[in-house]
């Protein structure tokens, strides 16, 4: 459901297919983080906002759970071998990697994660 909504927004905005994959991944990871950190004891609500900001597609996810800045988590050690490897922290690592910028704010008792996806990462100078 959330996925389809965001994909439709991204299509309307004209986000490139490659970027849309990153968007889909960032969305899932953000949701999983909300489930485990904002609502560790059960269910809660999450709201999604999509907007265009010039050449950037902006995705915001808000929850009313415990105050938690997911960006405060350290990046995982991705060099450990198979037996020592942990999954914790990979989600935010993916969010950081897939989006062009990400920020957190606490507003009206809500956690809001804002992810920005540039329409075209490879900025080229066109001469006329």
């Amino acid at each position, binding site marked *: 459901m959330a996925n389809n909504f965001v994909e439709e927004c991204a299509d309307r905005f004209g986000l490139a297919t490659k970027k849309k*994959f990153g968007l*889909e*991944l960032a969305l*899932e*990871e953000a*949701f*999983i983080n909300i489930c485990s950190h904002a609502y560790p004891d059960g269910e809660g609500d999450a709201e999604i906002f999509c907007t265009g900001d010039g050449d950037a597609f902006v995705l915001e996810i808000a929850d009313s759970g415990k105050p938690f800045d997911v960006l405060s988590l350290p990046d995982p050690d*991705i*060099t*450990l*071998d*198979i*037996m020592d*490897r942990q*999954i914790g922290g*990979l*989600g935010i*690592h*993916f969010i950081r*990697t897939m989006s062009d910028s990400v920020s957190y704010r606490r507003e009206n008792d809500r956690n809001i994660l804002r992810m920005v996806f540039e329409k075209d990462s490879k900025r080229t100078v066109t001469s006329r």
Partner: protein
Amino acid sequence: MEIRTKKEAHATVVAITGRLDAVTAPEYEKKMQELIGGGDIRLVVDFEALEYISSAGLRGLLVTAKLLKAKGGHVRFANVAGTVKEVFDISGFGSIFQMDATVAGALAALS
């Protein structure tokens, strides 16, 4: 997600289709645990028809690989490409698993 298994001479090939995410990863883990519990400890996972993977999917791969290693088994991944490969690369998983370009190559490495 769909999982199909096929016994070959030296290993069992597990082909996964669709999405390996927070919703489907438990199903993958369960299937792999059944196989390993049944004595299939030489496995090739075929990613050719896998369209999407998230950190929850990677967790499933890691959990089963650790279980397999504890049982003295082996797993190789075949046909990891495209956006799935990208997720492997970003997470560093590409270097902790044994990867092969084809199922035949993975089977040969296990024989």
